[in-house]
């Protein structure tokens, strides 16, 4: 069986919510969500920051300054928009690719870089930020996000929703199924966002499942769903905002949980260790590149007279400055080998303390250099 050319059938635009056309003009049937100029500009600034962060991170990886990185170019629009649709008290469950989503919901840029430099400190969540560490084992966040939402509902904290990101590939895992099924049964305030970027590493969407759409899978759980143009930040914002509202205050006959299928495209490689030219054609991205979310929002804002060249410049230089600061901070991180033994349990068991002491002794005896030998 030859794979159908991936993404082709995702190019019918009539089955999904969109607000901006490819060139950033407002679609005739659509209404722009109720956002102030400041909000729109801030969203745009976040998009520019995300795009530049992504490019910078890829080059840092090339220089060996960070480890494997999962790029998000083409997907930042959706990421930024989903986080914008959250209230501060809502929680976010991100994947390894959701850098922009994390940042917009409160994580420092430098924290994003910490784990990439090998320090778990970046996963520590500041007290006033509601962002879980990124999930690497695919789909495992889904039952957890559902559980947290359930817990808030049980505690009558009905002003809280939980937003959970995952990819198209994740829909094949058992945890997707179990999580969505619980969400339907217990009617919990959770918003599932499936970032369908058409690829799970080298596996195209068509090979992932024979169902027509990913959104349609929600029916199996009595969960409502919507498909949205994931390269249109305004459409994603609108759909997510509606889902968050519904999670907190469902109307009559409405359920709290929603599955949003945000239709996107992975412009680049799966990660910096991946070479997509091995498994997909160069031409494929063209359709999507023509709908680049950053350009689209910029065109819209320019058309609306909100974005001037001056503002654009300021936005870009602020972004670059922040990224440089973040890199500096991240590169200043250090970790004590004692840290290996900390926080495994609330109280460190004796055996583990003894192991820490052993390592201390060895370091004293042989010096830290002895540990930096290449193992292989």
């Amino acid at each position, binding site marked *: 069986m030859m794979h159908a050319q991936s993404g082709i059938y995702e190019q019918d635009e009539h089955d999904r919510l969109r607000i901006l056309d490819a060139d950033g003009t407002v679609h005739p049937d659509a209404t722009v969500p109720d956002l102030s100029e400041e909000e729109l500009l801030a969203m745009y600034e976040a998009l520019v920051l995300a795009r530049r962060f992504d490019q910078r991170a890829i080059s840092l990886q090339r220089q060996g300054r960070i480890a494997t990185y999962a790029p998000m170019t083409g997907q930042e629009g959706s990421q930024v928009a989903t986080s914008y649709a959250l209230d501060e008290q809502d929680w976010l469950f991100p994947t390894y690719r959701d850098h922009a989503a994390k940042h917009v919901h409160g994580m420092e840029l430098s924290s994003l870089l910490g784990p990439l430099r090998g320090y778990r400190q970046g996963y520590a969540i500041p007290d006033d930020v509601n962002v879980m560490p990124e999930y690497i084992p695919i789909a*495992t966040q889904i039952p*957890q996000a559902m559980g947290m939402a359930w817990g808030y509902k049980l505690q009558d904290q009905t002003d809280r929703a939980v937003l959970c990101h995952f990819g198209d590939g994740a829909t094949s895992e*058992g945890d997707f199924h179990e999580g969505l099924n619980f969400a339907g049964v217990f009617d919990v305030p959770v918003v599932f966002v499936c970032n369908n970027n058409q690829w799970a590493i080298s596996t195209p969407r068509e090979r992932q499942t024979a169902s027509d759409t990913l959104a349609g899978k929600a029916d199996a759980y009595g969960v409502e769903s919507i498909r949205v143009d994931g390269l249109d930040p305004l459409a994603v914002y609108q759909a997510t905002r509606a889902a968050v509202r519904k999670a907190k205050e469902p109307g009559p006959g409405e359920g709290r949980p929603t599955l949003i299928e945000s239709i996107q495209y992975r412009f680049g490689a799966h990660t910096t260790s991946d070479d997509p030219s091995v498994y997909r054609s160069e031409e494929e991205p063209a359709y999507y590149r023509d709908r680049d979310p950053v350009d689209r929002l910029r065109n819209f804002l320019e058309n609306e007279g909100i974005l001037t060249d001056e503002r654009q410049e300021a936005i870009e230089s602020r972004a670059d400055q922040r990224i440089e600061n973040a890199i500096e901070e991240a590169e200043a991180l250090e970790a004590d080998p004692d840290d290996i033994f900390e926080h495994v349990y609330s109280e460190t068991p004796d055996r583990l303390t003894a192991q820490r002491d052993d390592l201390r002794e060895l370091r004293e005896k042989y010096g830290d250099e002895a540990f930096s030998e290449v193992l292989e």
Partner: protein
Amino acid sequence: MSSYAETLAENVEEQSEEPTQRETPEESDSVDELTLVEAICDGLHTEMSQDERVMMLGEDIGRNGGVFRATDALYEEFGDDRVVDTPLAESGIIGASIGLALSGMRPVGEIQFMGFLYPGFDQLVSHASRLRSRTHGQLNLPMVVRMPYGGGIRAPEHHSESKEAFFVHEPGLKVVTPSTPYDAKGLLTAAIRDPDPVMFLEPKLIYRAFREEVPERSYEIDLGEAAVRREGTDISVFTWGAMTRPSLIAAEELAEEGIDCEVVDLRSLSPLDFDTIIDSFEKTGRGAIVHEAPKTGGLGAEIAATIQEEALMYQEAPIKRIAGYDAHIPLHALEDYYLPQAVRIQDGIREAMAF
């Protein structure tokens, strides 16, 4: 606001590590004669009454009261927001428990039999065990996963599993198993109050084997501490759960032959109480370990390996592992041959003595 939520709102400090202030009823010393499974039910009841954050989820734990009646009548008392029948999905149960704990609840999940835990194994070892460490200590997961384990009840395949070693090898999980009704309630209470995820393994063979006095008030038995069930000078027998009783019986019979066994019930399998283990061994110089799980890679290996590491100079004989064989526990016609019986325990101890 539901009345449940109201009381919760009073009690819940988001992500607070401190146990909530407990109603301290007149310190009463009234006791009941309970079986082990009744003591578990009583422990759940006491803790749910005192801490509104405690809730339970699992398959058939509600109206049905659990397939072993471990949650008997709790649904009627606490309602279906707190005693929740879930869909049939173990990864869902454990994944949900993680999320519930993160939201400020104190979930107690039930897995119907240890043999049905595996669909949820990933949530345990990839996340429950690691969220504290991953977040540099910033998140904690006060959750308990209860499950009956072990053989001997003439059950179908997959109903007699004893794979505690899987959990012990995973850093970040605590693992406990009681061998008496008193301990069952005390360890369960401590497990529920503990800020870390605790696997609470229930030796179902002795769910109803005997009764013991169990205080009505709540009390904790510290996690991480073994109990010396019988003092002795000739050999140390290390065991846990349902194997404690046959080990004690073997010890009594051997006493008549002049072999004086010390029987140590580990209770806490992770972290292990190595101090008690080593102290006992240094006293006796000989050791035997009794467990149901297959010998190879079982927890007995860890105990023997540690003893020779730390107390080789005291060692007078090979430490004998009296364990399940390296085959799956057979269907019930042969299970008595598979599990360490008193006869096998005695024989093993005699062998260790004769060396």
